[in-house]
């Protein structure tokens, strides 16, 4: 059959690539309002801001593929940020949480918080796969529990509820540093960490038994069970991996911002889950790609950055973001309904 370039075909293309269309549309609007938007500096900024977010989205993305969700993401990020920051304040800072603490190698607190968030996340996994608590409920409960935990850790003598600041240069440089190439063009370290994380998670998803099994569990749990898949084990693993990523990203987030409070990370789960959904993951489970998640996060970051750049009222930005999610997914689901 001859391929014709008519209205029907264009409509099909739009429907099949709804998310890219949304991105391009918004970009056009932003660039039309402010042509300076196209600059190397902005590109670098967007990429470095998207870096920690993509790490979080990759964590919750696996859980969504396995037909779960995780509302405790943001609070776990906050916990990781506060603990890692508290252990990495510079020795000459006056309000140190641990005045007598020795100077630690940077990697130690980061690994420590990864273990901590991994434990909280495994508790989510246990509630979901062993005690059959709906993931929404289990992680909603965990969200509140983690917030309480972070707040107790954060708000105590000698200085009370003060932002944990004065971070060690070695630590902040980890997130704020960059390899300078030429002029504005530089590669932030954050982008490098994000790229490595993307590659590692891509391999886990596409090349290992773990990946195949979480798709199977999300696509049809019954089928996975009768095929001999250990659903408990892989559910725990997918939550555990998410916890590790939250811990890693959370400490980078503290280093990026340069301080942390018990409100750091608040509502990050909404951005991460939205980005996953924009990227084509389905809440029905069993569907999703790493590429989709990365694209979803980038769309979100471009929109957020671009709208601020052209000076859109921040409250209006919320409304626009919300609309984009719903409209993009509505167009996207037409792919499936049109078949009939």
């Amino acid at each position, binding site marked *: 059959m001859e391929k014709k370039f008519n209205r029907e075909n264009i409509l099909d293309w739009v429907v099949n690539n709804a998310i890219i269309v949304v991105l391009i549309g918004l970009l056009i609007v932003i660039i039309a309002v402010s042509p300076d938007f196209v600059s190397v500096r902005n590109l670098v900024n967007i990429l470095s801001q998207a870096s920690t977010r993509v790490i979080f989205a990759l964590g919750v993305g696996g859980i969504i593929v396995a037909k779960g969700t995780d509302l405790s993401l943001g609070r776990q990020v906050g916990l990781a940020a506060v603990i890692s920051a508290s252990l990495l304040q510079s020795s000459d800072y006056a309000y140190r949480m641990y005045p007598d603490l020795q100077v630690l190698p940077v990697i130690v607190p980061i690994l420590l918080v990864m273990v901590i968030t991994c434990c909280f996340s495994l508790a989510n996994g246990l509630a979901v796969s062993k005690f059959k608590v709906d993931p929404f409920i289990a992680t909603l409960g965990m969200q509140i529990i983690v917030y309480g935990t972070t707040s107790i850790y954060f708000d105590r003598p000698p200085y009370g509820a003060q932002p944990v600041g004065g971070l060690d240069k070695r630590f902040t440089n980890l997130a704020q540093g960059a390899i300078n190439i030429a002029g504005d063009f530089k590669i932030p370290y954050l982008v490098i960490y994000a790229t490595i994380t993307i590659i590692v998670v891509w391999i886990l998803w596409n*090349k*290992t038994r773990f990946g195949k099994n979480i798709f199977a569990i999300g696509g049809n749990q019954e089928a*996975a*069970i009768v095929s001999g898949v250990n659903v408990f084990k892989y559910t725990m693993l997918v939550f555990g991996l998410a916890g590790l990523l939250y811990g890693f990203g959370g400490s980078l987030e503290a280093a990026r911002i340069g301080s942390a409070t018990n409100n750091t990370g608040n509502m990050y789960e909404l951005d991460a889950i939205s980005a996953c959904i924009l990227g084509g993951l389905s809440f029905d489970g*069993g569907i999703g790609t790493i590429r989709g998640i990365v694209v979803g996060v980038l769309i979100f970051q471009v929109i957020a950055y671009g709208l601020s750049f052209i000076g859109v009222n921040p409250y209006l930005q919320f409304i626009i973001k919300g609309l984009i999610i719903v409209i993009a997914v509505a167009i996207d689901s037409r792919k499936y309904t049109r078949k009939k």
Partner: protein
Amino acid sequence: MADAQTENKGKDYILEMTGISKQFPGVKALDNVKFNVRRGSVHALMGENGAGKSTLMKCLFGIYHKDEGKIIIDGKEVDFVSSRQALDSGVSMVHQELNQVRTTRIMDNIWLGRFPINGLFINEKRMYEDTLEIFKNLDINLDPYAKIKDLAVSQNQMVEIAKAVSYNSKIIVMDEPTSSLTEKEVSHLFKIIRSLRDNGVGIIYISHKIEEIKKIADDITIMRDGQWIATETVADITTDQIINLMVGRDLTNRFPPKTNEPGEVILRVKNLTSVVQPSVKDVSFELKKGEVLGVAGLVGARRTELVETIFGIRQMATGEIYLHDKKLDNKNAETAIRNGFALITEERRSTGLFSTLDVRFNSFIANIGKYVKKNKMLDEHKIKEDGDWVIKSMSVKTPSPTTLISSLSGGNQQKVIVGRWLLTEPEILLMDEPTRGIDVGAKFEIYQLMIELANRGKAVIMVSSEMPELLGITDRILVMSNGRIAGILNTKETSQEEILRLSAKHL
């Protein structure tokens, strides 16, 4: 173990199940059941829905844990607590509900739970080659990279069968493996089964289709109400005996007497073509008052699409539908219902049942507009009355109207759904495979209902893949082939052969 062996001395059993009991809250699902399968034989397991066949197999496969009894495989007592252990011990199963991960590829499904690993990574190449090898041995022509969701139901079923075979099991359980296969595919499956049997595999074959069992099985065990009833050699037992043992009473006739008299034409369908192809193409026919019209055809003949297009849930591109010479526009299910149509869908579980809700809710839901009182509240009294009417007139076996529908047997669920649609007082009842997966006794009752409806001046269109019921219950048979009409036959004057010949007309 010693007892069982002495008892079964002289016979080479690959599987011995003795004294199996399983209690669920409120029901004794299995009561001291015995079931022995000879090495290298096909053993049919029959019984009405709710007889306990599936429960027995789930106990064997480690999905349920038996309360009492012994399971001996190849002389060794086993006690599985997971499917994994069953698979590892040489028991595999083709599940009745196709248990597949629809979003992934064929080969991902086949090797799920035992992916070939190269160090840390999945060996995709080996997965692909091994899948091809299995398909080649079984003469299946499918691309291992194809997604499960893009396959036809019958192809999915072949994939499941290939998967079960690929475990190199000693025992393979096939639970209704032919439910959506065409005649040709069934004979292909039988060829596979025979070669497995000749290699010493014990095959447990669960089916409602007696004709098939007579063809393929060596032995037969019949269960009823959770109990073992009989084990016989298939060659020594007649169809009538099997049915009698299953229902526990004489059932001399599988079909009720055809007392309905078709009258004048009430429905005319002209040149119906649906929008999204491949689908129905240029279909025209007439339906008479008091008539039962069968729709026959192979899988992929677009029979379901035909009734769905008439019912308005598939878009019509061209064509006209006249009811009593009045042109209709069934643009969705709501208008179709208002115009006097009712559709009983093929997939009871996914498009018929509200399984988390009770029998009463499932009875009145399609008719809900009729219960809204002037003050916009629902008429609870009328709802109760109608729920009771459905249970009584369809003779639904349920403890009470507030029992969850999911706890009833398949046949009783189907009766509730038929009752639901009768409450809307339809003139045209569209039934898509109304007796699929329900037992002989319940089938008879559904047939009776159809004849009764026809007697009351309604018209019934029944899509069916079962030749005996098409020939036994309809007045005329519309044969579809590849989306087109291949012919409309008078049931009295036609034969199975003629229907099959027409089914292949437009292929």
